[in-house]
């Protein structure tokens, strides 16, 4: 899916500054001399998180995204052509180039999840939130998007909400999670059906003798 971007949108701030330049300097220092431009990816992430923090406190709230001014600022800091920053920012799906909801719900729909019913998860989100995939709720709390495999296929179907994975989902559980998040409650992350990590559903099958009773 093509990422939404609008260079002239009213929400684009005119300028952007990193809150803590010491963090920026630390990130840049991780890369060898002459290779500082490699810091472009962590800096884009840093900018997105900084905007996300501001967004969490705002009314209506919004989630982390990268304004155009932030990309230009990063190109200045790393002295690299702007277009090279844009290339990176548009390539990776983790960077949002337009505002999103406070909770970014990324429902995996690649084959394993799809076989285990990811369609139902997506429908549950759409039904409960009253939006289509790709849209944001009016209250600014949720954006739902469809993504490719996030690497938790063993516990399919799954969705990532902000930084956390919610696995072994059912439609009902998904709705519950959305409700809980909306009311500010904590939801346990990981498998939602009680299993530990990616252990087999019926309990351990191998190395049982090593399990302490």
């Amino acid at each position: 899916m093509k990422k939404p971007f609008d260079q002239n949108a009213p929400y684009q701030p005119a300028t952007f500054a990193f809150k803590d330049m010491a963090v920026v300097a630390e990130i840049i220092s991780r890369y060898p001399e002459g290779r500082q431009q490699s810091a472009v990816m962590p800096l884009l992430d840093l900018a997105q998180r900084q905007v996300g923090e501001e967004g969490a406190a705002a009314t209506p709230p919004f989630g982390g995204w990268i304004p155009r001014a932030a990309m230009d600022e990063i190109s200045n800091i790393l002295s690299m052509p702007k277009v090279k920053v844009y290339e990176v920012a548009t390539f990776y799906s983790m960077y949002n180039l337009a505002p999103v909801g406070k909770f970014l719900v990324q429902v995996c729909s690649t084959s394993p999840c799809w076989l285990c019913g990811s369609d139902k998860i997506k429908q549950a989100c759409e039904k409960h939130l009253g939006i289509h995939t790709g849209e944001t709720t009016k209250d600014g709390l949720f954006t739902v998007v469809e993504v490719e495999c996030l690497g938790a296929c063993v516990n399919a179907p799954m969705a990532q909400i902000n930084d956390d994975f919610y696995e072994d989902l059912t439609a009902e559980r998904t709705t519950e999670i959305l409700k809980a998040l909306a009311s500010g409650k904590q939801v346990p992350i990981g498998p939602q059906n009680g299993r530990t990590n990616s252990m087999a559903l019926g309990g351990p099958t191998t190395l049982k003798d090593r399990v302490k009773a």
Partner: protein
Amino acid sequence: MPKLKIDNVEIEVAPGTSILQAAEMLGHEVPRFCFHDKLSVPANCRMCLVEVKPGPPKPQASCALSCADNMEVFTDSPMVKKARKGVMEMLLINHPLDCPICDQGGECDLQDQAVGFGFDRSRYYESKRAVKDKNLGPLIKTVMTRCIQCTRCVRFADEVAGTAELGMMNRGEESEIGTFIEKTITTELSGNLIDVCPVGALTSKPYAFQARPWELKKTETIDVHDAVGANIRVDARGNEVMRILPRLNEDVNEEWIDDRTRFAYDGLKRQRLDRPYIRDDKTGRLRPASWDEAFAAVTAKINKSKNVAAFAGPLADAESMVALKDLIGTNLECRTDGTQYDVSSRAGYLFNSTIAGIEEADAILLVGTNPRFEAAMVNARIHKTWRNRRTKIGVVGEQHNLTYPTTYIGSGPSSLEDLVKGKGAFADVLANAKKPIIIIGMGAFKRADGAAVQSLCRELAEKFNAGFNVLHTAASRVAALDIGFVSDKLNVEHMDVVYLLGVDDRETLDRIDPKAFVIYQGHHGDAGAMRADVILPGSAYTEKNGLYVNIEGRVQAAKQAVWAPGEAREDWKIIRALSGYLGRALPYDDLAQLRTRIVKQWSHFGQVDTIVPAEWKKFGGAGKVEAQPFTSPIDNFYITNVITRASLTMAKCAETAAENAARHLEAAE
């Protein structure tokens, strides 16, 4: 030296040679889209697949694989054919197949390869993707749906033009080439994007839907918009120049040309002087006249006058200048742009290090020049040198964005004096460099103390053992200096007849006595023609055979591609005809005789396409240098001579450049 077999033929190549290049040496053409001789190798199109043994049992991209000992390569095996067919099918999935309405048709790599490797029908039934077109400015037309993502344009902008403004945005099916933020591109070399793009995604806006390549008559000639002498090909249909393309010459322009060279040709069709004119004594206006009348009027004046001066303008060919010199004899001048420098020694006005020689420089000092505007091809060479070896580049004079980082030393001659004394950090750079060069622009000479500045630069060159290079801006200049079209002290103000061979520079026109009788021979109705009492219509560079000498001292031949409009004639012929009227007929009746006469006196004109190096002698003028800073002579790249002033395309480019500059200022505030 790896030795390998390509299609069962043995070949030994230099280490690092790619299989694609080696195959080419043997004459086995390997299809390619992303590979380009002058750009980096991303190997992303996969069209160049070949079979290589030993190795994994799958085809390999030959552009990115270096030759190694005992390799066995097949460029035409069933595996290769199948692989290439697959690549072609995939490329065509999203290609619009709109060749009938595409300007690249007939010279499109994709079209050509599709004939070799395409199927006659498609197996693809989904909908094709479409990509929004981009606005890259007045020169480049985009049809981005045709793009095959080879990234040649991106690499050209990064690596040759030095203005990284294009990129590949998004990924997968959504990938598209663009600037992301809507903007036009700001390089003077943008026209080359049209040439590097292997398909019809980037084509020429002014040439859009004008002609098909097979209708065009191609003439290999040279450019005169600056003093570099870029090698070009003029494509004409009937008597109309339809487009101008670069020709490969590794020593001069490699395979690029700048946008003025490529796109100013519409100026050849406007504002032309296509018949003689005489200023009417009664009305004071110019009125059309016959050649006979015009020559008679000139003859009457010249025969009566003792003080006749002749000036040779920036676009004049060597033949017409020699003929004019033979006719007028004394009071000659070619430095019509108000520059002053000593011309007693050839080394004093040449680009002695040669253009290709820039690449060997490990330190470059720019004096009073903005090479990006004065000679974009020289600037591209400097950029290439900086890219390859991070050459240190110092600037004395105005500071401009030259596409590579520079060290600012100072604004005027005092900085040169400091350098001669070994003062300052850049003096150390020059002292430690093995092959430093100095490039001196007309900005350093366009002042009363020009000759003294020249001396200073010579001292500098001698002190640091650096190459001494003068960057002229006029195509005619070096030839004019070679044949001695100069006078020591010429008081234009006292001349009562002035013969202008294509001179439109205000610096000269403003000094002519208002009462003087002015003859203007040239091809455009511009400042010079306005001042003239008689106009003799001449030919532009595409309309005559003529010799030019570029900044390096390289003699090059321009060839006639079309005929001059109306009654306009080749320039040397006009002068020859006039000499008959004056009763001192010049002793040559055709171009060959004239060239023999030239070569007899200046033998290097006989060696076309070669450089006769100049002997290093003392040159320059005495006197003190003044403090005032150097200024660059060209502030608008697109509008520099009569042809560009008549060109609508150049006017549009200038407008876009001004808008971009304004936006840049705004952003900086």
